[in-house]
């Protein structure tokens, strides 16, 4: 069990109680392969018996649709956009992430507050202002920052994915370049600079994402296994071997047998 720690003022009405889950963040600029790695980690964790919740920006019930509609119209003002994202984040934090963490889930989140901060700062928002809005955020158990060596490489990945350049991911609202490519490069460079600045501030684990997916995935598994191992004696008594892709020593991971840990916790509570 771990005490809840927040970056700033905790959410109103929240009972601050220890939680048994793990909050793991995958961060990085557009096109570094975050969603691929979240999906891989999820499968791996689930096969190891861990209940997983995965979430990401604009996936809230409250504000997800509204943000998507507003993005479609390309009519979002800079400050409006940042606050809409913050609303989306708060809804997911309160209604998805925190309940899952209390119930002992591993929460994998594709981006967290750092992407929101980087995007806002690049768009001229006061860095202190954005940080205090996100003071409500729970300090995660780990942040993995997938870092690409160059923005040109990023552009290649984005094109390779087949979907092409997106208006917002290319920062077209900022007028940084004459076309999507120039704008993408200029915008992502600025984002990279912000991420690099946050690396020390928030203690990111930097992972070189320019390497093949398999290598990156192996690094992530090794690191995630360590985090999950931190407090092994909490619910599951048995341990299983984590499939070790490379040099991972066989790791003891608490398992969920049949029903997830929520059950055993509830039993413990009512007992």
């Amino acid at each position, binding site marked *: 069990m771990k005490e809840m720690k927040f970056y700033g003022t905790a959410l109103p009405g929240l009972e601050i109680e220890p939680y048994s889950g793990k909050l793991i963040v995958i961060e990085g600029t557009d096109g570094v392969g975050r969603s691929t790695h979240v999906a891989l980690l999820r499968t791996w964790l689930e096969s190891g018996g861990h209940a997983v919740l995965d979430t990401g920006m604009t996936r809230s019930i409250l*504000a997800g649709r509204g943000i998507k509609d507003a993005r479609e119209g390309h009519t979002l003002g800079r400050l409006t956009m940042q606050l809409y994202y913050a609303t989306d984040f708060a809804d997911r934090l309160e209604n998805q992430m925190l309940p899952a963490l209390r119930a002992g889930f591993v929460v994998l989140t594709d981006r967290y507050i750092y992407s929101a901060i980087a995007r806002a700062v690049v768009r001229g928002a006061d860095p202190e202002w954005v940080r205090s809005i996100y003071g409500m955020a729970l300090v995660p158990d780990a942040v993995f920052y997938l870092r690409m060596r160059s923005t040109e490489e990023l552009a290649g990945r984005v094109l390779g994915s087949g979907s092409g350049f997106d208006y917002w991911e290319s920062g077209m609202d900022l007028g940084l370049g004459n076309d999507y490519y120039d704008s993408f490069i200029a915008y992502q460079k600025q984002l990279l600079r912000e991420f690099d600045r946050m690396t020390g501030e928030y203690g990111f684990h930097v992972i070189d994402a320019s390497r093949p997916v398999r290598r990156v995935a192996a690094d992530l598994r090794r690191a995630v296994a360590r985090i999950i191992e931190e407090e092994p004696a909490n619910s599951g008594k048995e341990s299983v071997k984590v499939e070790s892709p490379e040099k991972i020593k066989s790791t003891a991971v608490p398992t969920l047998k049949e029903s997830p840990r929520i059950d055993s916790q509830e039993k413990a509570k009512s007992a």
Partner: protein
Amino acid sequence: MNRDTIPRMISYGHHRYPGRLFVVEGTDGSGKSTQLGLLYQWLKAEGYPVFFSEWNSSPLVKDTTRRAKKRRLFTPTTFSLLHATDFADRTERNIIPPLKAGAIVLADRYIYTAFARDVARGCDRAWVREVYKFAVKPTVGFFFRAPLDVAIDRIASARPVLKYYEAGMDMDWSDDEEESFKMFQGKILDEYDHMVSEFGLTAIDATQSIRTQQRQMREIVGRYLKEKLKEKVVLPK
């Protein structure tokens, strides 16, 4: 192609625009909207370019708010943030541009409404103020002060059914809507009272006659008007 070309966010109290911003605040039933409507008519008749801006009016956020209210999806934090989103859109679209153009903007409810309601719901005072730091400081912020029982009577006679969030039912203070509404409005009024000195709001006694209040309001607004404001903007018919 660098960050210096992107305009930086300006904080409360630091905007410098040729226009004027007058806002009205107060609990429901304080009569503030009536007063602002009368002020609008007067300014228009005097030949000033006037724009009206209302609380909860962003087309980008409207559907989300409506759905969330209907399905009761809000927590105090998301209630606060979504209203801030709405307000940001209002600011970027309907407040700053006319102020820059030298017009007069009238706002029915402003950031102080959020401060009062959100803090009454348990949000942290300093946090809510920080969220709205981008807001333009009004030229004059009027606070129409009506004692709690007067305001409640006025609302009860105007609107027989109280809405869920309006009555603060989301806070579980009481199962009784009217009881909950009274508690909520009481907390809101306390917050307003604190803000009068904090933000230098101009308090108007809302128990006076409508005409008396309007006279006071026009007298104060008149101090900030200049003939040349009339020439600044040509309003399309």
